[in-house]
């Protein structure tokens, strides 16, 4: 992308934003007028998660009674919550509780672990934390029989992939990644995290990974993204152990790209600041209109509790 293209996109962004705020084209935004594009809350993991979702209008905006919900946290690594390779168990639990309060019919918390599934689910603390909500909810999908083929219309590097069947059946998809660095994609946030719902991740690496991530996100577009920045794995991600920043921040948005972009610019990575467009897949997603990375043009509500 050259500067001219970039400026052009920015200009378009501003244009779209003005249309958006005028409630002409995006009716669902109109329902909750004054709802920010991004909610950024500082506080304890569970409380901040709840507050961030409330700022977006509450879980009932996303989950209707009887809906099937899939929550996609990071629980792929055999690491403890303090090591920040996995989403904080209390964030995941709070989301599950809020879905239950919104009378979700069925809630699944799913990931395709890289480490031994049982150990990952246990050591991440997520299984135990969610047990009291519903013992039949947290699963790792490490068996290809659980996946179903899905075509990706307009995919640039993949025209099909295999996605966990429960995700395809779900009415609502919630991305709940931890904020962490990633050796090849810079960061691993909500978009990169969607690879945890996909069977053949190998092929994504053999092709252009950034493009592939945007391809799968075009069919795995989260209705709600809640990024757990309670701890940020700032170096050595995604596995760690690395430098963990205790940021006590939760970022929520309806827009995966905006949430990811906000997380990139909110935290320091390897001891320095980066712009969202420095992350290949975020820029690609923005260019392909999956969402917006120009957070300077979006309404961000910050809160400390």
């Amino acid at each position, binding site marked *: *992308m050259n*500067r001219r293209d970039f400026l052009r996109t920015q200009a378009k962004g501003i244009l779209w934003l003005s249309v958006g705020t005028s409630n002409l084209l995006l009716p669902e935004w109109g329902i909750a007028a004054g709802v920010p594009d991004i909610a950024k809350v500082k506080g304890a993991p569970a409380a901040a998660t709840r507050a961030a979702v409330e700022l977006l209008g509450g879980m009932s905006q996303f989950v209707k009674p009887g809906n099937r919900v899939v929550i996609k946290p990071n629980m792929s690594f*055999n690491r403890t919550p303090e090591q920040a390779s996995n989403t904080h168990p209390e964030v995941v639990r709070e989301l599950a509780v809020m879905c239950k309060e919104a009378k979700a019919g*069925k809630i*699944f918390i799913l990931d395709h672990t*890289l*480490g*031994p*599934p049982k*150990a990952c689910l246990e050591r991440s603390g997520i299984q135990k934390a969610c047990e009291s909500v519903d013992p*039949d*909810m947290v*699963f*790792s*999908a*490490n*068996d290809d*029989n*659980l996946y179903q083929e899905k075509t990706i219309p307009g995919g640039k590097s993949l025209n099909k992939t295999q996605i966990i*069947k429960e995700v395809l059946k779900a009415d609502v998809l919630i991305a709940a990644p931890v904020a962490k*660095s*990633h*050796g*090849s*994609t*810079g*960061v691993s946030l909500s978009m990169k995290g969607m690879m945890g719902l996909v069977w053949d*991740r*190998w*092929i*994504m*690496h*053999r*092709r*252009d*990974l*950034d493009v592939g991530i945007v391809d799968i996100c075009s069919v795995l577009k989260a209705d709600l993204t809640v990024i757990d920045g309670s701890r940020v794995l700032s*170096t*050595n991600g*995604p*596995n*760690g*152990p*690395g430098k963990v920043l205790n940021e006590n921040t939760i970022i929520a948005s309806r827009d995966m790209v905006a949430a990811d972009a906000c997380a990139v610019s909110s935290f320091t*990575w*390897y*001891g*320095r600041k*980066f*712009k969202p*467009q*420095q*992350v*290949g897949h975020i*820029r690609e997603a923005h260019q392909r209109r999956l969402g917006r990375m120009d957070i300077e043009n979006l309404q961000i509500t910050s809160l400390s509790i």
Partner: protein
Amino acid sequence: MDFRRWVQTFCLVVFIVLLVTVLSGVKTSFNVDFFLTLDPSIVLITSVSSRTFLFGYLPAVVVVILGLLLGRFFCGYICPMGTTLDVADSLFGVSHKKQKKLYQLRSIKYLLLVFLIGASLFGVSFVFFASPLSLITRFYGLLIYPIVTFLSERGHQLLAPLLEKLDLNSLLFLQIKSVRYSTQLFILLFFAGLFVLPRLTPRFWCRYICPAGAVMALFSRKPLLRRTVDSKCNDCGKCVRSCSMGAIYENNPALTLHEECITCLSCQRICPEAAVAFTYRLSATQSVSNPSLPSRRRFIISGMTGASVAIAGLTSLTSALGKTGEGRVLPPTLIRPPAALPEMEFLSRCIRCGECMVACPTNTLQPVWFKAGFMGLFSPAMILRRGYCDPDCHRCAQVCPTQAILSVTRNEREWAKTGTAVISRQNCLAWELDQKCMVCDEVCPFGAIELTQEDGISVPVPKVKEDKCSGCGYCEYHCPVQNQSAIIVSPLNAIRLVSGSLKSAGRQLGLRISREQKDVINYPGLDSPDGTAPGFETETPSERDPDHSGSLPPGFLD
């Protein structure tokens, strides 16, 4: 069902329950390898070949001592191989009346035993070819278990739509994965042979071949409990025909070859005159000289043959005998289980029962064909492309009946270095194809992958930090390059000790293995203001393809 059938069924069920305990990884204080330690041939040969007697071998000693009292009761009542062969006999065998008279073959088992002893004197154990408990454990563990998982997986798939409909999610996400093993062909053919042989005589294996049977026969020539025949006998010969071991003299049914008798009591049951009884006798009233014991000459010849084959093994090109150094040709891809003893000791102990492979939760432990030479046939090695070796797991060592794998403490476990990962750059997506990948770094539990930048490559490329690598194979397993991984664990710098601390051995080698401490990242350009961090792009991103500067066609100079 008579008493013996009940006992046999019970023992086979216990054997299978223990095997299920092994494969499910359930922790128990009971010896899951109990049946293997009952086999006198395993204990005798392994003790000699490894020059060690383990406390765990005592059950076999008890079996042999009980043989003095009860004869070959083990074969008739307890041995899962015997029970399995009885089942095969009833399925595939012929009527006992039609059995062939092959009594001269009885000496084979003794000769085989002497052959094995001859080899073991030179520290080479071939017991895995003939030990009944090793073979039957492999039969159930490496052949039947995969079949059961395969069928369960298919069954689960058929049920899946129903489970989905009923929202039985725990059942839906059960994820039964069929296990896979190599060397199936051997087990298949071997047992096909064993199951067909009862067409000649029942219990062909037990009568003629079994070296464990041979040990017990030697100790039960004059057992306390033995068959006696009183004067009511009218030489009808019914018992001779019914005896599954051929232990009754054909021309004089009153005489018994006690070392062949498994006290199944069928002769007593079948005798129309009720002339047969099993009673306790101290004197050797009826005893006859053993016609099946081979001559001293043949004993010596088979012992020497065993020794010669062992030496042939030791002199094979890839033999592990001797110190490492120039001129050694060791298998380049042979990765032993974590904390396996040094190769020679390992091979002298390993009885190839397959317990470690059944116990392995990631199915990475596989029997090898000839990768480790013919002395290493069927021994366990890791195929890391199949599964990684979980650094929290050491089930293979916990179930090993002969301690061919060193048992280590929890905090020594990750120092059980099995090898070192090596990147083949020409296959690597980052090195060769300029692709963002870094899966090896992503999955490495030890932080043993260094991210670095190379001229002409726009993406970070991986290098292995040898001193941090534990050889667990996460990288090899997850590497997205097909079909062979671009990062492969080689046996380089594997730590293998007979005893002692793996950790201090590793520290002495200068290793820094740790899952909790990762090096501070040292990425080129991280400190400079216009540099970048791994995976991030510079603020004004250039085209990703490295710029081939110069406008001349290839081969021209300006």
